[in-house]
């Protein structure tokens, strides 16, 4: 039985070996055929990601890469550079010859004419060489824009607009702050209030203003909650006193002292005998606060 199997294996092995050799030869030959195919000569151009916008008079760098030339020998290649406008009209052209051995890579700087109007342009490069079979061209788009003070016009307008807007905002804000500060430091006038009541309007108003300069609009909010006192919630001006003014002064001072932990002092705008007499109830109430509410 073993003998029969050995004979059969020998019979199968020989044709398989021959087939394997033939397949290997075929694959090797195919590679040789592919490798022997003529290479396509290529050209690549671009701005080399250096610039996409230039001003007239500036240099536009064109990165050129020539591939698969020469097959081991030097070949003279004519390169034509052209700049075309949006209507595909050539506005600039230049040529040069470069010697290429298989591959060449270089950067060509083209000076943009000073009289070239702003707009979108195409930089086109074309190669010509002896024995050329297929034409090779390469293009990329760029734009030309004039500069003001070293900045492109569009950027100049953008930066200028932003600067002007920031300036206007700053000026408006400054004016508001100055106006607000002025309103806080300028005492309100009460010449329209009868003389016997005016003193209390002035004192209450000055207390609010004094506290507002330290603590801001919270001072107005606190004053607005005092029963019997009506004030302008924007500027703290006293509009009406509906209760005993001496009581309102005391309540206001107590509220401020409690809220801000700051001792309040006030002085009337005038210090004549009549004023002192009118202020006596206020002083009395402040004595009560001092005695019973200042722990």
């Amino acid at each position, binding site marked *: 039985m073993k003998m029969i199997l050995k004979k059969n294996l020998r019979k199968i092995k020989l044709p398989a070996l021959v087939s394997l050799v033939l397949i290997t030869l075929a694959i090797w030959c195919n590679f040789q055929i592919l490798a022997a195919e003529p290479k396509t000569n290529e050209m690549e151009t671009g701005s080399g990601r250096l610039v996409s916008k230039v001003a007239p008079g500036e240099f536009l760098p064109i990165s050129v890469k020539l591939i698969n030339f020469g097959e081991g020998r030097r070949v003279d290649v004519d390169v034509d550079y052209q700049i075309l406008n949006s209507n595909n009209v050539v506005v600039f052209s230049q040529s040069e010859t470069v010697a290429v051995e298989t591959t060449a890579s270089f950067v060509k700087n083209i000076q943009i004419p000073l009289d070239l109007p702003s707009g979108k342009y195409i930089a086109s490069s074309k190669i010509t060489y002896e024995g050329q079979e297929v034409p090779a061209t390469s293009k990329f788009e760029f734009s030309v824009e004039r500069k003001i003070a070293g900045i492109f016009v569009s950027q100049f307008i953008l930066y200028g607009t932003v600067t002007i807007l920031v300036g206007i905002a700053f000026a408006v804000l400054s004016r508001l702050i100055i106006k607000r500060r002025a309103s806080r430091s300028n005492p309100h006038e009460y010449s329209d209030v009868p003389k016997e009541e005016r003193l209390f309007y002035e004192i209450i108003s000055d207390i609010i203003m004094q506290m507002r300069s330290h603590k801001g609009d919270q001072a107005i909010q606190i004053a607005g909650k005092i029963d019997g006192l009506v004030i302008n919630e924007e500027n703290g001006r006293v509009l009406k006193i509906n209760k005993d003014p001496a009581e309102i002064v005391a309540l206001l001072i107590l509220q401020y002292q409690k809220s801000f932990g700051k001792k309040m002092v006030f002085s009337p705008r005038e210090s004549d005998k009549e004023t002192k007499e009118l202020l006596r109830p206020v002083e009395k109430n402040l004595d009560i606060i001092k005695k*019973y509410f200042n722990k």
Partner: protein
Amino acid sequence: MKVLIVDNDENTVEVLKASLLSKIDYEIDIAYGGEKALEMMKKNGHYDLLILDIMMPKISGLDVCDLMIKDEKLKNIPVLLISALPIASTSFQESLEKFKELKLIKDVLEKPFEIDNLVNKVKAIIGK
């Protein structure tokens, strides 16, 4: 029962009077200042309750208490102290403990107040 309301503010006096009369049938007198209150108490005799404001122009409510303590006829009149000042606060209560006025002050009521709160305090002090 006789109650004396003492406050320099006419509106407050009217509110106090109307509030009490709407709920309790008491005899109510009014004084628009500390001096007048002392004078009325001495002249009219016994009051069952003094509803007394603190901040008044010439003599404050607490000064009235001080003077009442010194007077044999007035030193037993109970006082309900009222004020827009934070008299219900702990700091005022603690502060008041240091002074003899506390002997008279039976309760305190902060302005603005609710009528029911006022009536309840009055009833609690002088009885129904």
